[in-house]
């Protein structure tokens, strides 16, 4: 059976060209970039180049890029690092209700340590209102962290406006751009963000490769302390192949971004249209236009996500869901709750994230399968039977 992966944000294959660029650094140019002898030279130069490419993807200079091993690590370095090492204004932090757990969970810890946290609400599309941000800022506000785009519902935030509000009040603005980088044009200077997180595995780079842009003058306390790699901000022998891979993935993403995103958005839009028009009782989550090009999030009314996911999996179709059963923490998506979705619709949510591997030819099959799976599960759903009864009564 053919496999149709529609869950590329969970994991994507490493771009073959990226792997090729990485390959010599495993066994041939394996040296430590800190070495004083010549085995360190090629790795050292390769890191310089990679850092430049990562910078170029977001309009930053190479020397302002701190290399880490995951978006989670970058996010932790940005917020905890700033609050431990920077010139804090006070004990207040602002973020949004729909951030990734690598933001939200550190905020919980910081709260226990005495920090005050404001989580800005979002509207039913998942948008943060810059006016809400303005009102939330006070003299104690040390950092604002708002994502560039949401990985689940795909909604893209008005980053420039949000960062402008932060700048007016001279509050440091961090953005978790993990879901956006490589898919949307990003420029740290145009948008005026002070720190930015990105991860290579979200745009066909290697797992274990990520970075944090830190605007010059901002002081962070390292979270992994030890050697003075990354200007003392992140200790540990450099993972040269991963860094080289991130650099190459960033270069490829920058060079093909507009085209790649546009192409994928066409397939995504077609899929959306087909699904919404042919399968009854579907509900689009997230913003209809302001969304990541590869992202589609749909709730299938009356049924639960894991069951859907398993049935689709049996048909070779891979998706993910915001249902509690599919989450490792057994909680349904906080993002779907924040946009006001009912628990039932949140449980029945399906997340599709596409790649260039997906094409319109598969859409009829996907539509047919989602239709039949939904019908089958609805047939055994007490909620659907109840709906039918109520519809009969109303009729």
């Amino acid at each position, binding site marked *: 059976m053919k496999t149709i992966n529609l869950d590329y944000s969970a994991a994507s294959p490493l771009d073959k060209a990226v792997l090729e660029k990485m390959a010599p650094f495993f066994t041939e140019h394996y040296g430590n970039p800190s070495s004083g002898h010549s085995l360190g030279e090629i790795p050292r130069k390769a890191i310089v180049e990679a850092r430049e490419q990562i910078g170029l993807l977001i309009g930053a200079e190479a020397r302002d890029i701190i290399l880490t091993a995951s978006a989670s690590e970058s996010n932790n370095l940005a917020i905890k690092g700033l609050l431990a090492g920077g010139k804090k204004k006070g004990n207040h932090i602002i973020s949004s209700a729909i951030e990734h757990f690598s933001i939200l969970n550190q905020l919980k810890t910081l709260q226990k340590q005495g920090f005050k946290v404001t989580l800005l609400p979002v509207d039913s599309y998942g948008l943060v209102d810059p006016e809400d941000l303005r009102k939330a800022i006070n003299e104690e506000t040390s950092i604002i962290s708002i994502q560039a785009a949401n990985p689940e519902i795909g909604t893209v935030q008005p980053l420039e406006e949000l960062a402008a509000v932060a700048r007016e009040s001279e509050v440091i603005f961090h953005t978790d751009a993990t879901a956006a980088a490589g898919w949307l044009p990003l420029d740290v200077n145009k948008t005026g963000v002070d720190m930015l997180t990105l991860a290579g595995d979200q745009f066909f780079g290697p797992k274990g490769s990520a970075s944090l842009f830190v605007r010059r003058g901002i002081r962070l306390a390292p979270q992994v302390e030890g050697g003075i790699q990354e200007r003392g901000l992140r200790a540990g022998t450099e993972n040269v192949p991963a860094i080289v891979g991130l650099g190459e993935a960033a270069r490829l993403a920058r060079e093909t971004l507009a085209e790649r995103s546009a192409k994928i958005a066409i397939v995504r839009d077609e899929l959306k249209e087909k699904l919404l028009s042919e399968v009854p009782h579907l509900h689009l989550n997230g913003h209809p236009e302001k969304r990541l090009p590869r992202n589609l999030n749909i709730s299938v009314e009356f049924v639960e996500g894991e*069951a859907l996911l398993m049935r689709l999996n049996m048909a070779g179709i891979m998706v993910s869901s915001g249902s*509690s*059963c599919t989450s490792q923490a057994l909680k349904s998506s906080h993002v779907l709750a924040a946009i006001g979705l*009912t*628990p*039932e619709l949140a*449980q029945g949510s399906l997340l599709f994230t596409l790649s260039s591997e997906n094409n319109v030819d598969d859409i009829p099959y996907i539509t047919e399968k989602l239709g039949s799976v939904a019908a089958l599960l609805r047939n*055994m759903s*007490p909620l659907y039977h109840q709906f039918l009864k109520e519809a009969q009564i109303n009729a």
Partner: protein
Amino acid sequence: MPDYSEKVMDHFTNPRNIGEIGEADGTGEVGNPVCGDMMKFTIKVKDNRIEDVKYLTFGCGAAIAVSSMVSEMAKGKTLEEALQITNKQVAEELGGLPGNKMHCSNLGADALHKAIEDYMEKHGTKSASVS
């Protein structure tokens, strides 16, 4: 796929006894959409035995398999026997359930017991042995 046993996968893929008995002798519901799983069991009782049992389930793979397994286990049993079925037994019959599915999804026996209780209440035979 979650780490489900073959038996779970079999019951999930081919769930037995789906549906709702029209004029049920007893009805039992557990769960809600917040926790992610809902089950509605309906039973037909004859001569103190569960003559027929059907269910509707909103929930994950485990919840569906559990419902199906409970319906098979209950059918033909006396009410007292059926009341002895525990969630744990159901999980065992299914070849085990992943640890994180033991709590919220493994409610089939509870739903069945509620249906039996409902029957007993209606027929004035509510037993003290209901767990």
